[in-house]
């Protein structure tokens, strides 16, 4: 058994795909010579050459459209948007060029590009370096959004993303970069996009979440188990398309759904999960709700940021305070 660090898992996926397919290229701001501000990609330039791994000016819009144009012409570009908050500058190319091309061209060419980007709060980076911009892209047909929680998944999902024939936003949660987990070599090489995984079985309540939320939810589930509440935890892994089948199957069993999202309550992907399940499983549902952040920008000050994010404690509290789910006598 070996330990694999999340950041190293990303590195391995890039390194292996760069080696496997010469059409794969990788670029971004300070990703090549310096190896990226989160030190995820050191050495890839030396290993694969500066024609295929290179640094760029600070021009997020140009990066995105360079990926789009080159993908349409046969490459499989991977590029980095350093902090996912900067997606706002690159949006037009992703939304109005890349995502629509396959359909509008009537299938003349796919757009196999991947954008890697660091998302999420908890690092005290403040409101404009901490967002998870999944909702900005949630209603964009043609795009996929991948959001891994573990090193092994990060690797398998990134490799699958690079081989996917659609534009993929690949979110790396900053608080997971230094997470290490054991791998034994039996992990599948590719983790399919669009499929969730049940990471804890339970009978009383389904918790669906992603990225850091998976770890927080598992910790919360352990604590809730001591109170007699048996939670099933689903790692969605892909936020677009969502594996609603997996959530529905779980809800059929538990009858209760909590979706935990790091991001504003209004308009997030958690709402999409709740809506889809309500539409489909209403008769079986005893309860469904979301735990997310307040509808505010993320604050800088530690006590404010800590209270703002939906961590383990907040999940436990959310379940305890919600009527119906607590067994008699507990609470």
């Amino acid at each position: 058994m070996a330990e694999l660090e999340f950041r190293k898992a990303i590195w391995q996926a890039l390194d292996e795909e760069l080696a496997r397919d010469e059409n794969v290229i990788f670029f971004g701001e300070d990703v090549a010579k310096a190896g990226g501000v989160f030190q995820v990609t050191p050495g890839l330039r030396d290993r694969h050459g500066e024609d295929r791994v290179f640094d760029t000016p600070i021009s997020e819009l140009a990066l995105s459209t360079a990926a789009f144009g080159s993908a349409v012409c046969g490459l499989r570009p991977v590029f980095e948007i350093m902090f996912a908050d900067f997606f706002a500058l690159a949006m037009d190319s992703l939304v109005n060029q890349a995502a629509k091309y396959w359909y509008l061209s009537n299938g003349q060419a796919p757009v196999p590009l991947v954008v890697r980007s660091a998302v999420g709060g908890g690092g005290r980076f403040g409101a404009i370096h901490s967002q998870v911009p999944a909702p900005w892209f949630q209603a964009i047909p043609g795009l996929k959004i991948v959001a891994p929680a573990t090193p092994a998944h990060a690797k398998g999902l990134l490799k699958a993303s690079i081989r996917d024939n659609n534009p993929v936003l690949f979110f790396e949660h900053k608080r997971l970069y230094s997470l290490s987990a054991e791998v034994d070599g039996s992990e599948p090489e590719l983790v399919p996009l669009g499929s969730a995984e049940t990471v804890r079985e339970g009978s009383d309540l389904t918790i669906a979440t992603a990225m850091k939320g998976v770890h927080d939810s598992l910790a919360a589930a352990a604590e809730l188990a001591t109170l007699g509440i048996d939670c099933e935890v689903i790692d969605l892994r892909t936020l677009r398309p969502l594996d609603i089948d997996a959530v529905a199957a779980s809800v059929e069993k538990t009858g209760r759904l909590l979706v935990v999202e790091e991001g504003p309550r209004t308009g997030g992907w958690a709402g999409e999960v709740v809506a889809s399940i309500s539409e489909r499983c209403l008769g079986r549902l005893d309860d469904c709700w979301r735990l997310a952040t307040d509808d505010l920008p993320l604050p800088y000050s530690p006590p404010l940021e800590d209270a703002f994010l939906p961590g383990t404690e907040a999940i436990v509290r959310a379940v305890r305070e919600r009527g119906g789910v607590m067994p008699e006598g507990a609470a």
Partner: protein
Amino acid sequence: MSPAKRSTKDAAAAGGNGQVGEEAEAYLARLRTMILIRKFEDLVQSLFLRGEVYGSTHLCSGQEAVSVGVAAALGADDRIAATYRGHGHALACGMSPQKFLDELIGRETGICGGRAGSMNVVDLEHGLIGCFGIVGGSLAAATGAALALRRTGNVAVGFFGDGAVNQAYFYECANFARVLGLPVLYVCENNGYGEYTPTEAVTPGGIVGRPAALDIPVSQVDGQDVWAVHAAALEAVAEVRAGGGPFFLEARTYRYTDHGRGDPIKYRSDEEMEEWRQRDPIDIARTRLAAEHGVEAARLDALVADVDAEIAELRSRALAAPFPSPDVTVPEFAPAEA
């Protein structure tokens, strides 16, 4: 889009009979394409007025020499990206006029099955990455294409208007292309206006100084003279293909029609319009072919008649083509093997 392919087709279409020189034959073919574009635009406009072409029409009448002169400088594996005013570029690339017209009137037989319409049309087989409805999107797509093409010695061309020169895509992409030394030719079709706004009003310092400030070589050309455009394009493409990085070509031209669907105000003087009518690229080509190459009037007239016949046939076939059915289930994503 190979010059070989095109010249064969063009020569035949022009009814080449060996009585004029090689250059004249080539330019007869180019003249024919320009006439085709003009008459295609007239047809589109008449169908628009009849409610058969939908939404908006951005015609390029008056600007034909730019598309034709540049396209003729490209090879089969080069790539073009154009704007919502892209009919000329598409036809000059070699896109089937029938498939194109079918697309514009929303038929299943259209080049994109009726999904795209004029502003989003794509024809990769003929090297057209696409027409892009977002101002600046075309030159951006060409920049990206060049990132792929630099491996193969090919060139990407992005056409765009003077208005795009004020926009984010232009600046970031031109700088990006220069930094990476990408093989992209930026062709600015300066028709004097972005919609109803004169170029000078929103482009302080003018156009070519801007790419020049990014250390990109530039040239300016009379966009009404297909000889001049072609010569400038040949030179630019050669520099780009030789590894010189991006190149910027400004072609001064004029649009004879409204911006899109009828202009809300009169923003161009009659004198100005008339002056540019005197510089009609088709007339200029006719005159030069006659005066400098001894092409007879009859041959030129035959060319027009030939295009008229083609247009008539295009029209009737297009109007007879079936609409796509909405009952087909369309997958959201491209499959693993495309």
